[in-house]
């Protein structure tokens, strides 16, 4: 039987390991190689049973029941289940009234699907920089990008932290344009108790199996404020012969998972808090910033670097980042870059071929820019000075694993000499000078 059940438990942390040699220099690693795997999504007997029961129902009912349960959980008015997050974003834009050639303001830092969904709607993405603390769309930058042809602003709740919705809502209202959320990272995230996906005129959200709320493989859901927007999106796929339906298999799995989402959210929040306190105490590492009243979903956990706190301010921060990255991975914490280049500098937005022949970019040439990374200094600064934990903290990992993560960061932060040596010996480049990574 092929199973993801762990073969052996992780030992409890041992303070003696903290003073040992770094794993990168031949010491023992904080998380041994054979114990690094984190299980995600967690699949239980309830998920299996839900799938078995679904076989006895019509596919339409399985999908509709799932969508209705999740819509009610989010508190959105109308929902449309889809095959993927990208298709949900596409339909959210269509529902919000985005038409061919319109401009949609999106952040320069997001997963590429945000911008590709705009192109799918035959509209033109206009990229703006992010806020240096939240990494979400900067409302002032968005305001500066509004033109006569702007139809929507599409903020992303980056890594699970809600964007500055009050400011962006006010901006949208001032110009009579739509606010469309990309809530793909932000399941259960909230501001003042209101859940992401229910803030905007419409929202799209990925439900792929690597998201905080996973379906059985691939899926997405679009939310709408009005019945008219919902109908516009539903009519659109019919009119254009587009198959965006969700599989009943994916939906049934999601129905099983939905009941346990609050439990997993609570474990994520607990682990994030535990790790955040430990990181802050190291000086070198800074936990994610969460504004008052916001609840972060921690689909990803982006960690800042403060080289000046450990006497490394003379080194380029991106080189410190690469050195720290190597040291952490050697200790058994699979930290990642998770992107290295602003989205407008990726191939599809440099070449702008779109559907072919430059469509839809040719519909609105004045909205198009040849961007360089330097056009988005905050995004570039963030990419140069941060590292990300993904599945290893998204999964509801054991308490002892969270403690060991904290120990690995402590161990690395205590060795600025090792970081300095790696930087001196290494041939490090700025993140955007390497091949553009999607994730």
């Amino acid at each position: 039987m092929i199973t993801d059940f762990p073969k052996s438990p992780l030992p409890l942390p041992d303070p003696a390991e903290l003073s040992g040699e770094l794993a990168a220099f031949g010491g023992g690693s904080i998380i041994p190689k054979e114990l690094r795997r984190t299980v995600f999504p967690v699949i239980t007997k309830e998920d299996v049973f839900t799938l078995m029961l679904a076989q006895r129902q019509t596919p339409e009912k399985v999908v509709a029941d799932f969508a209705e349960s999740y819509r009610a959980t989010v508190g959105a008015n109308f929902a449309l289940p889809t095959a993927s997050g990208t298709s949900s974003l596409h339909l959210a834009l269509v529902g919000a009234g985005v038409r061919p050639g319109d401009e949609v303001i999106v952040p320069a830092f997001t997963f590429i699907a945000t911008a590709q969904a705009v192109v799918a709607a035959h509209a033109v993405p206009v990229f703006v920089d992010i806020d240096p603390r939240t990494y979400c769309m900067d409302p002032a930058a968005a305001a500066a990008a509004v033109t006569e042809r702007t139809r929507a602003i599409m903020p992303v709740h980056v890594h699970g932290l809600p964007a500055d919705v009050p400011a962006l809502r006010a901006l949208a209202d001032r110009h009579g344009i739509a606010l469309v959320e990309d809530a793909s990272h932000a399941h259960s995230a909230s501001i003042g108790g209101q859940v992401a996906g229910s803030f905007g005129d419409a929202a799209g959200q990925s439900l792929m199996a690597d998201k905080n709320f996973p379906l059985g493989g691939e899926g997405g859901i679009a939310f709408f404020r009005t019945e008219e927007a919902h109908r516009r999106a539903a009519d659109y796929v019919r009119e254009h012969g587009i198959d965006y339906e969700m599989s009943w298999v994916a939906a049934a799995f999601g129905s099983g998972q939905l009941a346990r989402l609050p439990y997993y959210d609570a474990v994520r929040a607990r682990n994030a808090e535990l790790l955040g306190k430990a990181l802050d105490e190291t000086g070198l590492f800074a936990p994610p910033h969460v504004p008052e009243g916001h609840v972060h979903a921690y689909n990803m956990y982006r960690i800042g670097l403060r080289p000046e706190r450990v006497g490394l301010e003379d080194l380029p921060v991106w080189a410190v980042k690469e050195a720290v990255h190597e040291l952490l991975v050697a200790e058994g914490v699979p930290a990642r870059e998770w992107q290295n280049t602003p989205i407008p500098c990726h191939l599809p937005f440099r070449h702008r071929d779109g559907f072919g022949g430059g469509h839809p970019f040719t519909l609105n040439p004045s909205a198009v820019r040849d961007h360089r990374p330097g056009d988005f200094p905050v995004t570039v600064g963030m990419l140069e000075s941060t590292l990300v934990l993904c599945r290893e903290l998204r999964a509801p990992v054991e308490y002892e694993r969270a403690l060991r993560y904290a120990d690995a960061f402590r161990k690395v932060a205590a060795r600025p000499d090792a970081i300095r040596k790696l930087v001196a010996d290494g041939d490090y480049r700025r993140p955007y000078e390497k091949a553009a990574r999607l994730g």
Partner: protein
Amino acid sequence: MELFDTATVLTRVLTSGVVMSIEKNDRELPGLERLLTKRSGRAHAVLVNSRSAAVHSALAGQGIGHGDTVHRPGLDAKDTAFLAWLGVRAVEEDPGAPACAFDHIALDAHTAHRLPELAAGSTAPALVVDLTPLGFGPAAAVLTDDPAIRSRAERLKIFGAHDLRTMWTQEEDAADLVPGVQFNYRLSPLVAACVRMALSQAVRPLTSTGAAQ
């Protein structure tokens, strides 16, 4: 397919813990690709999450996009509308074009065993196989012998990435293979596993007369 068989397949994949299409350890999607290429005699199978995704992949795989005209007689209203959304015009007659841009077939529980003969009857460079009627939700494949069609179609469904070796990297030497507009057209391993079993079980029905040939 019997409900028990579907239950067994779903439980097997859930027990493996691998339900995500971009998981390195996934065996279900490659397994279905192998079955489709073996049965059809085509060199490559590109799995996608719907019939319209397969039509898009078949066209984009050949570099056909907005503003192009293709020879494709007999399209129904839905496919015609979808091609129009892509900006592609389909014409019934095109003396300049030797073959249809794509053929398509749909397989259900009763016709699944006919894949070899249906594939043999197709002469287009890309064959769209709609697997949705098998009953596990939207699913489809593009079958082709042309490695360029496969490469472009694979990139279209996963944001320009190609496979797990190059996955999540946009920069490539072969930039002409990277599509401009990119989607997530990926198929779920759970759906693929069910489709694979349905196709595996699809055998030619026994003759009722038992008469000699």
